[in-house]
């Protein structure tokens, strides 16, 4: 963080959200919604949680923009690898 100007990030609020999302995930996983929607919902919730951790606990929100770009850089590669290789079994 550049300076300690910004007030302390809402660490406990984030924790509460993470907690609620985890419970939500477990209940959603065993709900009777069609499997397809369960998968999509769970993935979205997991990404949401991951983003919260990166943004607040890893302080990405308070870093310069270029750190943000740096941190995102491997993600396209991860997507390319999985999406392309999966085509083999379509």
């Amino acid at each position: 963080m550049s300076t300690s100007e910004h007030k302390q990030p809402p660490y406990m609020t984030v924790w509460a959200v993470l907690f609620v999302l985890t419970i939500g995930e477990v209940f959603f996983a065993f709900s009777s919604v069609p499997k397809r929607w369960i998968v999509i919902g769970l993935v979205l919730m997991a990404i949401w949680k991951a983003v919260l951790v990166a943004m607040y606990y890893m302080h990405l929100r308070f870093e310069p923009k270029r750190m943000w770009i740096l941190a995102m850089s491997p993600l396209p590669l991860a997507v390319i690898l999985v999406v392309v290789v999966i085509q083999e079994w379509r």
Partner: protein
Amino acid sequence: MMTTQAATIDRVREEGSGVYTLKLGMWIFLLSEVMFFTGLIGSYIILRFAHPTDFADPGQVLNVQLTAFNTFVLICSSVTMVKAFAAIEQGDQVGLKRWLLATIILGAFFVGVQVVEYIALTSEGFVPMAEAYAALGREHGTTVIGGPLYGATFYMMTGFHGTHVTIGVLCLMFTYWRARQGKYTATSHGGVEIMGLYWHFVDLVWILLFTIVYLI
């Protein structure tokens, strides 16, 4: 660092990343970790897509309740870690040590639960070895559920994550030891911050793993 060359104290390096070198280094290291877990998790997704019947529905083989609790433990350890960092930012050495200790305990607890889980699972025939694989369902009694890829990918992913947590706990102990020596102050605590970055990253990976491996 900027001040090591006494003669050139007035000369300032080019602006680089805007963050100090140690932190930048940790972030860059974490990028390679992202790719490492991409290889493992990606392989799991691909293999599961290719062989859906080799894998079981959530709760059939794996113990979701226990692991959900463990996930909660790891999330709490992230909070304690970030509290430790917040404490030293204010120069609060006592707080730093207290929160670090809490993080160590929570992290070690997580690993312990995982070991217990592994023991239970292997005794049910859920093993990584292809020839020996014979996972029994939680409720379904004796039919073998899933196939060898299930065991192999499960242990691969959770095992490497667990290794990361274990290494994290060891590093935390080192940080704690240095904190006790009073090495960290309100103005100098890069070590705590990068420790936190690593720890939260490991937590982040677990969040994804828990969803992908246990719930989907």
